[in-house]
């Protein structure tokens, strides 16, 4: 295992202070470079498609006549399932990716993409964004969504053997999935502002500022109090800011990410942090506005210009360079991506060229470790199988997907995180 600059400095600080003077220059320059891949490193990037993604128009059942009957305006015909370059997005004799998802098609063909059909919440389904999200963040079994997130429980449980900046929410605020009683996750909207500034006129006073800040916030506060949570997080933020914000300055890559794309920017940030912060293992991106009650396609019926299409395209066009970036750094085997959304949409389109809150949707799991293909079960769209709001059935519980990732990727016993055994969906091994 190679030594990183940070470990190097840390180890020096605890007792090898003078040894650095004797180290050969070659060693030093390597220590300042990027970490060599650690074959045991397992990174999970979770992408939340916020608002309720329309699974039926993401993985399109192009042979299902009911799909066309329920969606006279929103549906894509088989002949329309090709990307902007004219390449087919059909992935099986029944399904095709939305035509704006061409960026993912190559990875699918290479066997790197598992698609879980009919995935949703079989235990506590809700038409509420907020209830559904909370349940999916926490993997709650009984509707109680206070307390730790599902990945927060993983962080807490493995705290004894793993420390440092392990979990980062990128591009916005923190995610409830990372809420943990003991571990602290970072929220990094951008690198530029992610620092602890001091008065520029008196740089010599900076240490006094930081020391007094740490001392005041390092006091003990009442257990569970707001002050205690704030103080703990504040010390963590100030103490790890430079480790995180220095990531871009150490990053080298030939991969070009799309410009003007919010999610591509965030995938690039993740790549930079993965390379700079060796202990970083969990990332979360909250992306988009998938709550398409209206304008899922525009009034002129140009379906590829609709909000849904544009966002799917942005997502897939960002995943591809990220994968290439990881591959360029020898890390493609070390990263798995997973998407989720709080629910799917009604099978029937509404009168606003949109769809209302639904039930099951599709989940994607992507990476070299993944055995690509179709998993789960496509729900029937026959009238008798839909509820009053035209919601199809949910066949795979999202907790099964979490369990498969916990057991098969993060290497912990999923029962200890989720509270009971869930079926292995089978996309690992």
């Amino acid at each position, binding site marked *: 295992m190679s030594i990183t600059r940070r470990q190097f400095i840390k180890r020096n600080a605890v007792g090898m202070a003078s040894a650095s003077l004797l180290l050969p220059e070659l060693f030093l320059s390597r220590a300042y470079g990027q970490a060599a891949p650690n074959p045991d490193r397992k990174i999970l990037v979770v992408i939340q498609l*916020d*608002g309720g993604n329309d699974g039926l128009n993401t993985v399109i059942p192009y042979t299902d006549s009911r799909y066309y009957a329920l969606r006279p305006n929103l549906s894509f015909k088989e002949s329309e399932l090709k990307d902007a370059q004219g390449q087919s997005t059909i992935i099986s004799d029944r399904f095709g990716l939305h035509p704006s998802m061409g960026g993912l098609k190559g990875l699918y063909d290479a066997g790197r993409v598992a698609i879980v059909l009919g995935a949703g919440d079989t235990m506590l389904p*809700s*038409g*509420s*964004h*907020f*209830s559904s999200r909370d349940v999916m963040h926490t993997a709650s079994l009984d509707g109680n969504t206070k307390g730790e997130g599902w990945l927060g429980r993983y962080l807490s449980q493995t705290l004894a053997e793993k420390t440092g900046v392990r979990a980062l*929410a990128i591009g916005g*605020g*923190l995610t409830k999935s990372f809420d943990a009683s003991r571990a*602290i*996750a*970072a*929220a*990094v*909207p951008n690198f530029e*502002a*992610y*620092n*602890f*500034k*001091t*008065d520029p*006129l*008196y740089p*010599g*006073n900076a*240490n*006094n*500022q930081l020391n*007094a*800040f740490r*001392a*005041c*916030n390092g*006091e003990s506060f009442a257990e569970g109090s*707001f*002050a205690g949570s*704030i103080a703990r*997080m*504040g010390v*963590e*933020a*100030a103490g*790890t*800011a430079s480790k995180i914000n220095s990531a871009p300055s150490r990053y080298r890559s030939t991969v070009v990410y799309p410009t003007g794309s919010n999610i591509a920017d965030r995938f690039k940030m993740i790549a930079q942090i993965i390379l700079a912060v060796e202990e970083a293992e969990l990332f979360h991106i909250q992306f988009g*506005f998938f*709550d398409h*009650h*209206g304008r899922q396609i525009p009034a002129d019926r140009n379906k590829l210009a609709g909000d849904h299409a544009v966002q799917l395209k942005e997502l897939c066009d960002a995943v591809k360079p990220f994968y290439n970036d990881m591959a360029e750094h020898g890390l493609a085997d070390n990263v798995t991506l997973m998407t989720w959304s709080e629910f799917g949409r009604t099978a029937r389109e*509404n*009168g*606003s*060229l*949109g769809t*209302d*809150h639904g039930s099951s949707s599709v989940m994607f799991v992507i990476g070299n470790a993944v055995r690509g293909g179709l998993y789960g079960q496509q729900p029937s769209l026959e009238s008798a199988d839909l509820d*009053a*709001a035209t919601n199809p059935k949910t066949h795979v519980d999202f907790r099964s997907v979490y369990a498969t990732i916990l057991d098969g990727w993060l290497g912990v016993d999923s029962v200890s995180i989720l509270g009971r055994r869930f079926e292995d969906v089978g996309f690992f091994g």
Partner: protein
Amino acid sequence: MTNLSYDEAAHMFRRMGFGGHKDDINDLVARGREGAVDYLINYEAIDNSALDSTFRPIDYANFFQLQKMWVSRMIRTRRPFQEKLVLFWHNHFATARTKVDLSVLMYIQNETLRQHALDRFDTLLLKVSQDPAMLVWLDGLTNAAGRPNLNFARELQELFSMGINDVVTGEANYTEKDVQEIARAFTGWGYKLKKKNKDYAVFKLKGADHDNGVKEVYGQSANFSGQDIITIICARRATARFLVKKLFDFFVYPLTSSPQDKATIEKFADVYMASDHSFKATARAIFASDEFFSDRARFALIKNPLELILGTIHMLDMPFDTPAAAGNNNYYVRSQAMGLEIFNPPDVGGWELDLGWINTATLLERYNFANDLLSRRALSSAEFGVPVVTIELLRRFTDASPQKTVENFLFALGPLKVSPETLGILTDYLQTNDAGERVEFVVDDATIDKTVRGLVRLIMCLPHYQLN
């Protein structure tokens, strides 16, 4: 008259406004508890005309101008509770410009909230529902007979009035079927934009798009209109309870599901029911209550970004801007970086309060705002949204005794109560040179410009200072 202490009056300004300065706090103390609550709540009696006239030239169609205008109003108003209440309603009826798109509609909604902020809840809910921003935001405009759109019907019940489950009994307040039927009652709603002295909108029912059939709602069947549904919802006790809970969570302390807290909800839900759904009566009862003035309530919430930013300005009595530069501040940018972009809540659920404001990035923003504020010595366009802290201002609080200096600032910025250890750390900071050696605290401009500035910044980085 019930006595009002200085600390209690400061608490009132933090909760019912955006922080107060010593002179304002003393003025409130002299009014006693009821008098102070009435003074702040009966804000329509306070002449604010000078403020309104300063905003005339602002182009409401310009979104950044609109954001600046509202923040400027929050700072400059003589009716702090009015703007705080509009912020409460903006969070309650969370509507975002990202989808509404037209800034002028956000402006019209803001005016609607201000106009009806203390009204009967029935009136407020109806006016907001008929307002163009909401009709765009939750797809009311395309909700038509035979092709209902469920977006508004769901959030009307889940977020704007009752919640999914009764906050006291836990019973379900409505079914999915109610969502579908209620959507039909609101079909055909639209608006017309007008311009006279200012932009405004008129509600319009598009008859051909309205579903005149019988709808079955909460077990009753009739040809309900949208207004009928709002009347029915506002008469339900579940709505009274939900509103009380939202008021407590925003203004008093976070409620738990304990029997004691449920009894508290019931007590104020009774006021809502007995006062014909008067929001003002309900709010007055809460703000004058022992609960509001209890130890439990004191510093029990986490400051939202605007409370933090504007509170600092008010508490230190800083010159924030001049009438000539009305609206010309960038505080909204700082607030946005801390997680609160006005007119752009994250979604229809609004902002998550308390710990929802806190993560590593927003905390760094809070610390850096404090640093930018205190290291600002002259006006410059390089730094967004921070006024100048002058030597004169700092001198007012600085004492020959370093501990007294710390205490003076803790008093002005709260009053904040800290542990003897914290007091010691801050006092030591004033007496430490760059080499880390202990030196004597000498009150001169050089010390004030360096160490006292640093002290105020450090106080603003205390966890206590993040609390409201």
